[in-house]
């Protein structure tokens, strides 16, 4: 199940892009699925349509509060090294609005590489 989380004592190679993309896409689908309050009906198979160029805002219609939920899921899955809140706090608002899935994948991979 958890293919990319570091194992205690070992120094595993950081996971490849495709693996992380698959995991992040699943988390995004979960966030959208959880958000019963929105008018959009996000189905579970949305994860399959998510690619590196998919934008969180324009393409997935994610609101900023959905990003908070995603951030919590990322930390839960990968551990505290992956800190989306801190990462996004360092970006300009325009960059956050235009955020792509690929940018999150790259952040996850670099954070995991730094920590290993």
């Amino acid at each position, binding site marked *: 199940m958890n293919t990319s989380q570091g194992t205690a004592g070992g120094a595993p190679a950081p996971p490849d892009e495709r693996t992380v993309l698959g995991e992040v896409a699943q988390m995004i689908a979960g966030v959208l699925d959880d958000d019963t309050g929105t008018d959009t009906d996000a189905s579970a198979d949305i994860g399959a349509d998510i690619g590196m160029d998919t934008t969180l805002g324009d393409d997935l219609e994610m609101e900023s509060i959905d990003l908070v939920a995603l951030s919590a899921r990322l930390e839960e899955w990968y551990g505290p090294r992956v800190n989306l809140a801190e990462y996004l*706090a360092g970006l300009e608002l325009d960059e956050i609005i235009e955020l792509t899935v690929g940018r999150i994948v790259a952040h996850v991979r670099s954070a995991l590489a730094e920590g290993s």
Partner: protein
Amino acid sequence: MARVMANGVDHHVQRLPAAGAGPHGADPPAVVLVHGAFIDSLASYYFTLGPEFAAAGCDAVMYDLRGHGRSARPERGYTVADFTADLAALLDALRLPGPVHLVGNSFGGTVALDFAVHHPERVAGLTVVESGPATREWAATMAAALRTATETLPEEEALNWFVEQYGTVSSTRRGDPRHDAHVRRLGRAAARLIRTTGIAREIHTGRALTDAQLAALRCPVLLINGQDGLVGAESDRLSALLPDCRVAVVPGHKHSVLVEAADQVSELALHFIAAAPRGTPSPDSAEGDPK
């Protein structure tokens, strides 16, 4: 994500604990961040002040107000007094008896001021961004704005009205299509809230704060405003009333100064919190005597 039941409402809470608290082992100060109404959520802090506060040694506590973000959306209970009661119950549930630092943006500042007046023993200091207290004048202004949104406009235009308000009055980024789309998404959440709850009928109908109540507020208060924001005149009046109050103005910014000038707001607030005389000392304050 953490769910906390407070005052009968299921609240969404996010905490960013202090990173690298002081070596002397003192508890880091708790800073509770209260967001604005309608188009806002804790996300405005989670990607701005929250991480900066945590990095500076504060325990940043963020929550979605009832009806907002991912907190429950009850049909009733949207007066300022309800939000104050929610906050008191939330602090109890989180075992934060206080005194805590409160940061409130826009309507969140209105809640923070009301909370401080009614629970003075629980507040070490107040940072109020682009906001003012729930006075009678505030209620009249709010009522007029909401009448425009909910009575004189059809529902779909009410949504656009929020976008227009945000775009023209608040933001310095109007005209950027991607930004406008972002604001439209926020406006949709606001329209949903107004459609499904009594917030627009209730929010301005609670108890009003008097000048005497405000003049009795002992804790230090920092008012942070955008130079071209919405509350300049009210801030002057409020700062004259409050016994311990400073005003900081961020040049070139409007009502959404928190999100659009996050670094400056964060620096002002952290400096103020470190210098506040009461509450648990910040790790920074152990190193010297911040002025």
